[in-house]
């Protein structure tokens, strides 16, 4: 069973922008979880703040180390990695990391990025294409991208009110 976590109201996210963000998050994360082998997925803004997640509650302990604060750590790290390439004029569209116990797929979505965790034997072609399709609407929404850019510019992660 998976647990969908969406953005809560905060100083940065409220009203119509929050509603729009959560609608996109629900759509994106639910689409990704239709892929066999996917265990969890997260969306972060470019500041590394977690916007939403879909977590497999039955996943093993290793997976659970990415819950809560731990997911902010790797979100921040991955965000910095993407930013480092961006600063050098290279737009890293996606990257794929394979570990003995799991696979990690990271896809840039403009002012946010999605991280998909899966079993090592998952179908990577299916993951890449599904994320590409699911992310298209997220990337193309100009208003959402503006809101994301505005919130990510805040000096520290935005905490729920």
């Amino acid at each position, binding site marked *: 069973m998976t647990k969908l976590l969406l953005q809560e109201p905060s100083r940065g996210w409220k009203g119509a922008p929050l509603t729009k963000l959560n609608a996109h998050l629900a759509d994106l994360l639910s689409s990704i979880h239709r892929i066999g082998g996917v265990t969890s997925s997260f969306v972060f803004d470019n500041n590394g703040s977690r916007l939403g997640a879909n977590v497999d509650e039955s996943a093993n302990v290793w997976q659970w180390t990415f819950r809560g604060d731990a997911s902010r750590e790797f979100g921040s790290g991955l965000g910095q990695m993407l930013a480092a390439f961006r600063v050098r004029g290279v737009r890293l569209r996606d990257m794929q990391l394979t570990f003995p116990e799991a696979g990690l797929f990271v896809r840039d979505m403009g002012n946010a990025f999605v991280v998909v965790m899966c079993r090592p034997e998952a*179908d990577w*072609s*299916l993951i*890449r*294409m*599904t994320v*590409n*399709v699911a992310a*298209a609407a997220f990337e193309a929404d100009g208003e959402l991208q503006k809101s994301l850019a505005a919130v990510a510019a805040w000096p520290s992660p935005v905490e729920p009110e």
Partner: protein
Amino acid sequence: MTSAPSEVIFKLSDNYVAENVQLDPDSFRVLSFVNGLNTVEEISESLGEDPVNVWQILGALHQRGIVEILGAVDVVPNVAPSGPPPAVGEAFFARITQELTRGIGPLAAFFVEDELAAMSAKRDGLPRERAAELVERLSLSIQDDAKRVQFQQAALEELRRLY
């Protein structure tokens, strides 16, 4: 014995010697179905009882020497037939080619054959597990991002139909 307990068959013991056999009502009811033919599961169904309860009663009767285990029914496992993995059908190729044509034009069919050759695969007998790989390779031939997404979206629907 490797069978599930519910497949075991009991019979009345040939060696039981007793002048008076005292049984409680539940044990009597279970014993009345022990005939060397009925499995524990069948006895449970006939009595409308939980197989675990029936097994406990039979276990106690067995300990007293009243019944003995005859054997077990061979359970035929539900094993998928061995053979080559499921292959992708012609309908899949037809749809993929049609969608690819929207992205790159009338040369789509040639691209499909080219990519199959690059994958060292054949149209006839392409394993289902390699279908997504083929679709992804084809999608990379579409330069326009929006058209590529459209192709992938249509292809993903076809891929879901394979399972």
